[in-house]
């Protein structure tokens, strides 16, 4: 009785943690392998513990450049796609206008298009327009395929949001922009954050479309893909693990800091 009650109260959280475990499982393998000294370039089996990979995470030529480049591209593409996508989501949820369904198709199609098709046909466009491929063509491509994901995610949050709060803000002298900035944005923020996270991970992880539009620029997934042809250097595992850890650390710290700030506020009284 006691136990079943306990379970009934917490099973959702327990399942959630199990699913997170499932999501993290390969990362654990990757993390373990980051401490491995492989028996050969072609072996992924755990062989011998070593810290060498962590000591020299950039030992493999160009790998860290590729990581940095991927982060840069991911960052720019995320910001641009999130802004563009959020604007579109607002237009679609908050306004009735001619051509809505056309716009909806335009948003769904990129998701429905095989990556390869998207990659090659975009490349054809760049070539026929004489645009040299490289960093910025990658950014353009990434923004293009991230926008749809952002729109759909933000819309999910926006749909059915309580308009009365925005009305109250307008009533309290907040212009459209201020209402957006002070009320709508904070309330939609979880959706926008989720969309941005999606966009970043899409961008950071994309190989196919990037590969076609990269010219001679190499991103991290391209590097890994290439390296895989002859055995992945163990430092790739270091980068994988580190990216994961850094993401967790940043968020962990920021939520801790947020809490401390709030506590300080409480002591200082309203500010």
């Amino acid at each position, binding site marked *: 009785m006691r136990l079943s009650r306990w379970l009934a109260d917490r099973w959702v959280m327990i399942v959630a943690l199990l699913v997170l475990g499932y999501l993290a499982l390969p990362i654990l393998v990757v993390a373990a392998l980051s401490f491995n000294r492989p028996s*050969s370039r072609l072996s992924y089996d755990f062989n011998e513990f070593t810290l060498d990979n962590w000591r020299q995470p950039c030992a493999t030529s160009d790998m860290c450049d590729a990581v940095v480049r991927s982060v840069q591209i991911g960052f720019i593409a995320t910001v641009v796609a999130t802004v563009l996508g959020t604007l579109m989501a607002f237009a679609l949820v908050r306004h009735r206008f001619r051509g809505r369904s056309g716009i909806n198709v335009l948003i769904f199609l990129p998701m429905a298009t095989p990556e390869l098709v998207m990659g090659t046909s975009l490349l054809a466009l760049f070539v026929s327009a004489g645009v040299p491929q490289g960093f910025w063509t990658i950014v353009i491509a990434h923004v293009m395929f991230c926008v749809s994901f952002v729109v759909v995610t933000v819309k999910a949050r926006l749909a059915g949001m309580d308009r009365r709060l925005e009305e109250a803000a307008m009533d309290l002298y907040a212009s459209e922009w201020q209402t957006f900035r002070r009320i709508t944005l904070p309330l939609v923020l979880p959706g926008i954050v989720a969309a941005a996270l999606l966009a970043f991970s899409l961008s950071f992880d994309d190989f196919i479309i990037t590969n076609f539009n990269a010219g001679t620029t*190499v991103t991290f997934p391209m590097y890994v893909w290439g390296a895989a042809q002859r055995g992945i250097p163990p430092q790739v595992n270091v980068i994988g693990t580190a990216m994961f850890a850094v993401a967790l650390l940043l968020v962990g710290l920021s939520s801790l800091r947020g809490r401390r700030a709030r506590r300080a506020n409480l002591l200082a009284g309203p500010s």
Partner: protein
Amino acid sequence: GCGTKGAQQTEAGCVSEDLSGTEKKLAFANWPQYMDVDDTDESKRPSLDEFITKTGIQVTYTEDINDNNEFFGKVQNQLAACQSTDRDIIVLTDWMAARMIRLGWIQKLDPAKIPNVQANLLPSLLNRPFDAENRISIPWQSGLAGLAYNGNVTKELRTVDELLTRPDLKGKVTALSEMRDTMGLLLGSNGHDPANFTAAQFDDALNKLKKAVDSGQIRKFTGNDYAPDLAKGDIAACIGWSGDVIQLSGEDEKVRFVAPDSGVMLYSDNMMVPNKATHKGNAEALINYYYEPAVAAKLAAYVNYICPVKGAQAEMEKIDPELAANPLIFPDEALLSKSKVFMALDEKQEKEYEGKFQQVIGA
């Protein structure tokens, strides 16, 4: 009315300029880990660095060729439009080199500028059908496609037929998704010549393959990714490449490369200067440099593929006598006699055979 123009280029129609006189630069695109690196500092590439020091030519080395088809897709738009690919040297496998040459996308080198090639290229790689004068595509490394097995999980393997039928191997076999390698071995196993076969013979071999796929004997078709699986034993036996298998044998001698008596496939990855590359002269300097036996030996000692440079074996003795004696790096006559180069295909044949093969391998 609005179709596409052909991608075919002619020497006259697509003229490239050589700025090597003024620009000491070279963009070299190669496969990953196809270049020797320093044991202690993996960011250093000794042979390449030496070239840079010697000539003062700044080499931008990128490892952005992972797959022949993929790379072709990546540069075909530019080359078809007679635009620069921003690369001065690219390295591609025979059949892809043949295709590009056929399409008129590759610049001819000046034989006078690459004397080492003329002097040191392995005889068996001389005057291949797609480059009769040895001045368009120069082998970087060569290799063999044959059988391999992991002795920890299965008993010895000798023939292609065993691979395709032995019940204990069921579901533990892979073959290469590279049509010429897999089909070459199968043609050979049927007693046909991969260098010269008929459409009917091809179909016979393909049927044999199809049976093995349908029965579940063959688990999948792979690129290089079979190697870790073979090492682990998830795959017991496969069609694979010599270089990879030598690597694995070094770790675990029970992993073996087998050259079946019915024949092995010999291929090369070739250096080429694409149209509109502006540093042909510098490229020639580099190609010539890598055909110095000492340099070639240094490279071969690292990458473990078949070294296409005569005299490198002697140099290798100085570096690593054991490697110098390895027939899979410096093949002996016995092996060379078994090795075949796949028949040159024209565009139509290529499409037809590739189409049929892809149907069997599932895509």
